[in-house]
């Protein structure tokens, strides 16, 4: 009897897509629990992103927009969908791919090959900037110097600046990144756990850095990771997936695991957590770190030197632990504008992916 039931489950009867009522469903949407066919999935997936772009006025006609491209699933799908929507809805955008070469042998080499294929597949011009050019050090050299323990501090800090510098080089008006709803929910959770109200309000914003030289936005803010991966699978998009060899465990964070467990019990949880993060914003009377610029390189910094310059100084002086974690009495120790370390950020994903 039991076996019979299982059989009928698989056959599923003449169950049809609940949008078109014509075709066989292939996917259960986590957001709505709807069972939908492949064609309807493409349509709602793309249309929702278009709506997010329109409602939030992410772009203006004529703007130059760089897509932070790591070769991973999120940025690959973003590049594909954005160039598609740009054509279909005549956004009038000039789109570019911007990739950072950290100089990690075997890891970045492969993912950059993926981005180079995307350049041809989507017809988007690609700019690759290397850590070596920007900082004088490759990640391999940094790891040789400091060992495997703290290198993701370097990855995160250096990459954030590298994207901004690359965007400036391309003279773009905006930078878009592939951060998805799961990423944002995870960051909300981490910021709540840390009591970091300043970052909590910032991390749910769809656009950040509007006061800086190049605003950043996240068109996938409400897009589930499951749907991004399903979309890439059905469309056979070419993306690269492996862990950064320098941080085999970094992404296996407790928060991610927790979010995925919650999603299994109640898929809406991801959107609810983002909503919670957004609502917290109202209550921010907490003093925000004062924004200034780095005396050395001019990058936005709440302290005398930006985090990248502190880390670089340490590397160049042979004191690589400088600027990492709670070490005190460094360059900014005596001259801080704010006693609270303003530029520490949470590693939300493995270092090989784009950072907030």
């Amino acid at each position: 009897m039991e076996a019979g039931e299982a059989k009928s489950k698989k056959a599923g009867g003449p169950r049809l897509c609940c949008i078109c009522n014509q075709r066989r469903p292939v996917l259960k949407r986590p957001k709505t629990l709807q069972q939908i066919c492949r064609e309807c999935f493409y349509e709602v997936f793309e249309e929702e992103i278009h709506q997010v772009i329109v409602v939030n006025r992410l772009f203006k006609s004529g703007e130059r927009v760089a897509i932070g491209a790591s070769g991973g699933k999120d940025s690959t799908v973003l590049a594909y969908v954005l160039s598609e929507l740009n054509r279909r809805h005549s956004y009038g955008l000039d789109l570019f791919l911007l990739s950072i070469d950290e100089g990690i042998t075997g890891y970045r080499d492969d993912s950059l090959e993926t981005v180079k294929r995307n350049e041809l597949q989507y017809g988007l011009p690609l700019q690759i900037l290397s850590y070596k050019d920007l900082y004088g050090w490759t990640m391999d050299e940094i790891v040789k110097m400091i060992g495997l323990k703290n290198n993701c501090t370097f990855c995160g800090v250096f990459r954030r600046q590298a994207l901004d510098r690359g965007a400036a080089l391309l003279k773009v008006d905006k930078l878009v990144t592939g951060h998805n709803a799961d990423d944002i929910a995870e960051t909300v959770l981490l910021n709540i756990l840390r009591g970091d109200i300043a970052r909590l309000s910032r991390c749910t914003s769809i656009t950040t850095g509007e006061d800086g030289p190049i605003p950043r936005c996240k068109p996938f803010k409400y897009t589930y990771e499951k749907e991004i991966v399903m979309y890439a699978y059905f469309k056979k998009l070419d993306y690269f997936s492996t862990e950064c060899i320098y941080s085999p465990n970094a992404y296996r964070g407790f928060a991610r695991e927790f979010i995925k467990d919650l999603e299994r019990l109640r898929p809406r949880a991801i959107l609810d957590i983002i909503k919670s993060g957004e609502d917290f914003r109202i209550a921010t009377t907490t003093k925000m770190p004062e924004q200034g610029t780095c005396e050395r390189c001019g990058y936005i910094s709440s302290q005398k030197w930006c985090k990248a310059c502190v880390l670089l100084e340490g590397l160049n002086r042979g004191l690589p632990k400088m600027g990492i974690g709670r070490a005190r009495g460094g360059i900014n120790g005596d001259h801080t504008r704010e006693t609270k370390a303003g530029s520490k950020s949470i590693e939300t994903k493995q270092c090989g992916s784009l950072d907030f």
Partner: protein
Amino acid sequence: MQLTLEFGGGLELLCDSEKIHKVNVDLPNGADDLTMKHLLSWVRTNLIKERPEMFMKGDTVRPGVLVLVNDCDWELSGQLDTTIEDKDVIVFISTLHGG
């Protein structure tokens, strides 16, 4: 029965970096059907060479691993209760690697 198992999104790294595995899986003793539940434990025993916790949690896949049976989300076919037939193609994709 003959099955094609495909691993993607980084899961291939757990099974000799081979994405596609053509395998022969026997029905469990005394059973009339092969279910996903049985297939998962078969995969864990026979294909996963390292870090099985990246693939499974308890008796099912780890949250964040997507499963498609003949290109259809297994959430539509009863997940662990899905029955597998000869020549089926089962795809496992991790959403957890990279961005």
